[in-house]
Structures are given as structure tokens and as C-alpha cells.
């Protein structure tokens, strides 16, 4: 089995990209807020919520620095239960990969390629992803560290260009939401940190992994910073009510860029950024799927698994949803699933670990 090593800064970029790229396309966050005018306080209150949310998984990673989630779930929960939990995580990662591919398809078909069948677009993406996963996780890490800064600065530039369309009164907070409500409305945003789960699988492959805290917390803060800039501008441009009806808010914001009436129609840029990001995110999740299955079956080589699993992801991405409405509703129904896999299960495992620890010491 290969022993890969990803430097921490690449983990940071992978972590960041994987989280924000879907939200640059469709953002359920606008519909979760009770009142989109209160977006600024909501986003600020959201940061500590998300930081606390990451703690159980972080502690769990550090307890088993040499083993991955699939391996230590068995040693914590026992062979049978541990295997079941591992299987559940494999399903979770497969689902996440399929959703990402599907969002990519639907976005491109709705806005750019009206006549191209969705299947062709998904296939195009997955072929590159399969190739990247063949080449290993270092390749994905290097891609992320090159592409994600480009995406980030590209987004900053686009927001700056679109800013002349913004109206401050659209984001003037009315403070109708109480602090408790803010916490609750920001919880779905926190549950979308499925990156915590894949880091648990890749953790043994990270170089200097004992110092992961700044990378993870820094990543969460960095993503929230980007969300703040993008989402507040979007609400300021479109108004707190109509933003809820817009399917691709960030794209529409970029479409509204018009600098001095000559720099117009720059949305192909956001398309490029989004294709980069979608590739990185799909590649990470797909790599993790393959890695999990390899470890679950205790296989020596992951390569024979890649193409069959690619086909599974491809079919899932087509078959899981029959239309875009189901897909958007799904991002709401997936919240408890996300919550279970990114918070509840790791917390449970951590508690069991602490309960078992004194007994294990005594027996040894």
C-alpha cells in the first residue's frame, strides 16, 4: 500500500475548496435564514458555531494519528458495529460525490449548455476525476494548492467588480432574529462541513498531522470570510426577498457586473473557476470513497476499484434525482444525515473511546 504524504498547506486548500465551491453555485443558506436582512450578524455568529462543531472530529483524528476513520471505527465500536459504521461512511461519501457531480451537471445545463445532455457533462468531469484518482492523492493536493488560490482571488475580483450594483439598505440588519434563532439557523451551514469526515480518512496521509488545528480552524474562518464577502454582496445586489428565488445567486451576481459600461459579460470567468473547483471537490470525495472501500475490504491496491466505483458514482448522479427541484429539496433533507456523519457519530465514538480507555489501560 502506498504511503502518501500531503503537506498541511495543501490540506488547507483542499479543505477550503471542498466547502465553498458548491455554495458558489447554489446556496441554500439564503432560504434557511429567517430574514435575509440579518445576514451580516448571522454570518458572524455562524463562525464560532462552526468552530465548535469541528471539535469532536478534530479530537478523534488526534487520538488515532496513524489510522483512518474506517480502521479506528472498528477498534472503538468493536468489529461488527465498526464495520457497519464504516459501510455507512462509504455510502455517505458516495452520495456526496454523486451530489457534487449532479450540481455540476445541472448548473451547466441550465445556464450554459442548454442542449447538451446532462449525462455527457457528468461523464466528462468523471473521466478527469478518475484519472486524477489513479495518479494519487498528492496530485489532487497539488491541483488544489494551485487552483484554489486562483478561484479565491478570481471571486474577490468579481465581487469587487459587481459591487457598484449593491445597495446598502438591502443588508441593513433589522435584528428581528434573536441570538438563539441565529444559532439554529446557522446550524445547517455547520452541518455542511462534510470535509471533516473526509479529513478523517485522509488523516494518516497528512505530513506533520499533529499540527492540523491551525489548518482546520484557519480553513473554517477563511471559508466564512469568503462567504461573508460573496453572500453579503449578493443580498445587497438583489435584495433580501428576491435573492431567495434565485437559483444560482453567485452566477447572477457575476452577470450583473458592468464596469464603466464596457467590461460586461464576465460570467465565463466564474464558469471556469467553478469547473476547477468542482473538479477538485469531486476528486477529493471520489478518492476518499475509493480509499474507504480499500480499507474496508483490507485490499492491498486501490487501483482496480477506481473504474467500477466511478461507474457507480456516475449512475448515482443521474439516478438519485429526477429533476432540479428534488435536488434542491435534497440539500434540505440531507441536513440530518450530514449532522449524523459529521457530528453525532464522531461524538459518540469519542465518548466511547473515553469510557473504554481506563478499562483498556487496566487490562494491559
Amino acid at each position, binding site marked *: 500500500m502506498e504511503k502518501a504524504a500531503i503537506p498541511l498547506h495543501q490540506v488547507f486548500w483542499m479543505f477550503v475548496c471542498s466547502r465553498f465551491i458548491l455554495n458558489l453555485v447554489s446556496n441554500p443558506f439564503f432560504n434557511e435564514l429567517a430574514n435575509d436582512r440579518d445576514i451580516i450578524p448571522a454570518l458572524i455568529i455562524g463562525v464560532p458555531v462552526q468552530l465548535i462543531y469541528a471539535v469532536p472530529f478534530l479530537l478523534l483524528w488526534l487520538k488515532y494519528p496513524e489510522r483512518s476513520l474506517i480502521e479506528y471505527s472498528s477498534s472503538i465500536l468493536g468489529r461488527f458495529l465498526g464495520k457497519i459504521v464504516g459501510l455507512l461512511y462509504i455510502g455517505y461519501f458516495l452520495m456526496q460525490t454523486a451530489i457534487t457531480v449532479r450540481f455540476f451537471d445541472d448548473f451547466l445545463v441550465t445556464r450554459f449548455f442548454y442542449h447538451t*445532455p446532462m449525462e455527457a457533462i457528468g461523464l*466528462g468531469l468523471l473521466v478527469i476525476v478518475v484519472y486524477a484518482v489513479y495518479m494519487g492523492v498528492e496530485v489532487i493536493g497539488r491541483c488544489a494548492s494551485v487552483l484554489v488560490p486562483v478561484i479565491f482571488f478570481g471571486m474577490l475580483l468579481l465581487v469587487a467588480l459587481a459591487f457598484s450594483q449593491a*445597495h446598502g439598505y438591502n443588508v441593513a440588519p433589522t435584528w428581528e432574529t434573536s441570538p438563539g434563532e441565529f444559532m439554529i439557523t446557522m446550524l445547517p451551514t455547520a452541518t455542511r462541513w462534510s470535509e471533516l469526515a473526509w479529513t478523517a480518512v485522509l488523516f494518516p496521509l497528512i505530513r506533520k498531522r499533529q499540527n492540523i488545528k491551525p489548518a482546520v480552524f484557519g480553513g473554517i474562518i477563511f471559508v466564512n470570510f469568503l462567504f461573508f464577502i460573496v453572500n453579503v454582496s449578493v443580498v445587497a445586489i438583489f435584495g433580501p426577498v428576491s435573492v431567495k428565488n434565485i437559483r444560482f445567486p453567485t452566477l447572477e451576481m457575476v452577470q450583473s457586473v458592468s464596469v464603466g459600461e464596457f467590461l460586461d459579460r464576465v460570467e465565463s470567468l466564474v464558469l471556469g473557476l467553478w469547473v476547477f473547483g468542482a473538479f477538485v471537490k469531486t476528486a477529493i470525495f471520489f478518492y476518499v470513497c475509493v480509499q474507504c472501500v480499500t480499507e474496508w475490504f483490507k485490499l492491498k491496491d486501490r487501483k482496480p476499484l477506481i473504474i467500477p466505483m466511478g461507474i457507480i458514482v456516475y449512475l448515482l448522479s443521474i439516478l438519485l434525482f429526477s429533476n432540479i427541484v428534488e435536488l434542491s429539496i435534497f440539500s434540505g433533507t440531507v441536513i440530518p444525515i450530514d449532522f449524523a456523519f459529521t457530528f453525532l457519530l464522531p461524538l459518540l465514538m469519542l465518548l466511547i473511546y473515553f469510557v473504554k480507555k481506563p478499562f483498556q489501560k487496566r487490562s494491559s
Partner: protein
Amino acid sequence: MHNKRKRSSFTGLIRRCVALGLILPLMAGTAGCWDRTEVEKLAIVAGLGIDFIPGPEPILLTVQIVNPSGLQKGGGGSSSPPFLTLSATGATILDAMRNFAKASPHRLFYGHTNVIIFGDRMAREGLHPVMDYLARAPEFRRTFWILVTPATAKEILSVKLDLEDIPALGVTEMVKEFRQSAAAVIERQKDFLSGISSKSGAAPVSRLELLDADASINERLQEVTAGDSQQTSMPAQGKKQLRLNGTAAFRKDKLVGYLSDAESRGLLWITGKLNGGSVIMPCPEDQQHKISFHIERTKSKVIPYFRDGKLNIKIDIEEESSIAEVSCDKLDVSKPETIKQLEELQAKDIEARIKSTVEKCQALRADILRFGDTAYTRFPKLWKERYEEDWPDHFANLPVAVKVTSKIRRAGMTSKSGGTTK
């Protein structure tokens, strides 16, 4: 050793073949051939107009299509016009668009549509069904300008402008120019939707009218010269012009009435969008002559407050101007007292304009001044309890106070009127 090298070159070959097999389908995909469109097969729509005709097919679409061969100048004197105007009716907007396809061999491309003009009747029927299509269709962006005409959109799009080859592009230029000089409130689609969905529930839209300006000027000139025996023979051209004039007030998605040009400027004063412009008023002691000011800087603030449990609105405006022309006989602008007097007079004049705008909006029961939204931001709870329901009625009876502070900073390059000492 030799054997191993041979094997590695063989696996290398396989690898290369696999890579080639992966790249080939990608090449087909990246070219995006499925959605290719040849540019000569497209008919580029420069302007779109929508009218309402009661009946089974109520939507009348009028498009102005750019005709590239007509735009070539000096090329052998081709007689084809630079634009074509097509119309089609349909039960819905998409239906009407499909009906174009029956008449035109090219696919209509709306990606460059910057202006959408609504006829009066369409606007009064409600824009909701049309706006839904325009927000859903990917070709339209949310930044196109919305204009309303008291005539029909078809008439507007059939007019040929003097200096512009394509009228719809001319209208776009006009819109941009007007925004610079701040003569009218012009809304993009996104701001219109944001306005009617806000707590105010109303939005202003600029009004575009078809004017026979030449004819009316000629008429007046003829009145002046009527006494003379020599007839001025002005050619009765009857050439129509487009003019952005006034504002259409929408309550929700329906047009409820128009504001005049002067009232529209009051609207700009209140919303703080005024940018340049002028104030013209009669001289203090003689009504015949005029004095005009150039507006340098304005700042406006709408302050909602509660008095005795009732919502009040206070509009605070600070204005800085310079004297542009003085034709008064007895006015000495070089004295500080005169400046003070003029400042007060100017403030009163602006106050009166703003009051007339507010009264007009209240009469139309359309809160295009964003009072509702401002009050809601400041007092969300009270506003929701007492005013959210029937806001238009509350708005119509809202006490509004206007306070203008006017400052004259400069007086141009001459000190006394006319540049001559009398």
C-alpha cells in the same frame, strides 16, 4: 535487468494508450459541440417590447433585430435598413417567441437585450407573468433596463432615431446618459423586483414617450412670427422622437400612475440619487426673470420616527449649489445677505418640489420613496404590528415633514448680473 526494462516499456505503452483513450472523449466534450451556434444563424435582438392586447393571445412581442448588412456604411449603397422590427402574438411570452420562429429563418438571440419596454396596458395588467419568464430564461440577465411607455411598445420600437442606426441601442445610450445626468429614475430589472418585493411594495420605472418635439416647437415659433407678413416656412416634418420623460409608479407589479418630470426629480432628491442637475426659480422680487443654480452636491436622509404612537417621516436634505445664471435686475450677488436670502429661497423651492412629489405618490398610494422599507428597518416590530397590513393606505395618510438646508458655495466667474454694471 534487460527483461525488466522491456516490461516497463510495455506498460508505458499501455499507459499511453489508456491516456489517449481518456483524452479523446474529452476533446469532444470540451469543444462543447452540442451547443454550438453559428453567429450568422442568429438574429441578435437589440430591444424587446411587450404589449397587452385583450383576447385569446394577449401578449404582443415586438423585437428589434440588428441587420448587419444594413449597418455597413458606404458599401455600394445597400438600401436595406439597419434594423428590422418584428411582432408576434401569443398566449404566453414563450408562445409568442415560438411564433417568431415561424416568421424568421434565424434563431432570435436575446443575450444582448439591454432594454425591455412595456406598453401602458401591459403594465396596468401586471408584469408578474412576464417577469417570471424573464427571470427564468437564462439568456436574459437581471441588469436590463425596464421602461414603460404610455403609448405601445410596438410604436416605440418602430421609430427611427436620428443619430443611432438601431433605436433600441439608442435608447440604451439614452438610458446611460440619463443616469449620468440624473434626470430620471431608471431601474434595472433586479432593482425593480427588489423594490416591489420589499416592505414598501412599490417601485419606480422610467417613462419613455414618443414626442413630436419638432412640431410643437414649430407651432410656437409660428405663433411668435404670426404677426409678420412673411411666413416662416418650416418644413412640417412630423418626425417623432423618443424622450425619457417622467416616472411610472408601480404598486406590486401593476402600474398605477405616472409622475411628471418635475415630480420625478423630486423623487431623485428624496432617494439621494440626484447627481448634478439644476434648480431654476424666479428672482426674489420680480417674477419675470429667472435665476438658476447648478447643484453640486446633495445628501438626503429619510428618518422615520414615532410620535404619539404614530409613524412620521422626516426628510432631511442638505444641498450645495453654485449660481449658474442670474438675470434679475436688482440682485447683487456679491453681498453675503443676498446669498443668505437666495439660500433660503432655494431651500423653499426645493422643499415645495419634494412635497409635491410626496403628495403625488401618496395620491397614487404607491410607496416608491421606500418609506415603508426604511421604517421597517428602523422599527421592525412596531411596523409589522401596525403597518404591514394595508401599507398603501397607511402610506397615503403618512405625515411627512421636509427640511432642506441649502448652501451656495460659488457664483461662477462674474460677480454682478449680466457681467455689466448698470
